[in-house]
């Protein structure tokens, strides 16, 4: 009985150890992004013009960008 409990305990502890870094991985990614430079992008826009980060925002305005999965869906 004691031996069984002991092994169960060890198993749970190892499981926890294994899961902990996995949960941290996503959090690490987010932290690493902050402080990084955005790459200078040019993309077509809904305003009939190409938008280049360097021309429109760099040195001028702060920029909020929301990445979203698809148009015609709730964001």
């Amino acid at each position, binding site marked *: 009985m004691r031996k069984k409990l002991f092994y169960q305990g060890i198993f749970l502890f190892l499981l926890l150890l294994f899961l902990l870094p996995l949960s941290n991985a996503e959090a690490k*990614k*987010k932290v690493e*992004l*902050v*402080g*990084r*430079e*955005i*790459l*200078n*992008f040019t*993309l*077509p*826009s*809904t*305003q009939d013009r190409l*938008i280049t*980060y360097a021309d*429109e*925002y*760099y*040195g*001028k*305005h*702060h*920029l*909020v*960008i*929301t*990445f*979203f*999965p*698809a*148009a*015609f869906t709730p*964001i």
Partner: protein
Amino acid sequence: MEGHQRNLYLYERFNARVLGVSRDDVITLKYWAKGLDLTFPLLSNVTSFLGVSVDAQPDGRPIFSRRTIIIDKAGIIRYVRDGSPDFKDILLFLKKLNQKGGKP
């Protein structure tokens, strides 16, 4: 996206601009933006490179995940948040960012 549109006058006050980016083509985005009466641009990133650069492109999926980032005037990413945008949180952050002259 309406949340951003409703807050445009406040983004202006904090010297901020806003963009939406998805992997849709421009025509689809234009129709959607017109339906929502958006006055800020949406960008079409069909090849996903911009989403990839900020980890908003999950492996094996044809669409971005929801992620909002804020870049200061000097081009540095200052804020990252997953999921639907928390508009009040964004506004508070922009207010601080603008107050500290772009250096929080």
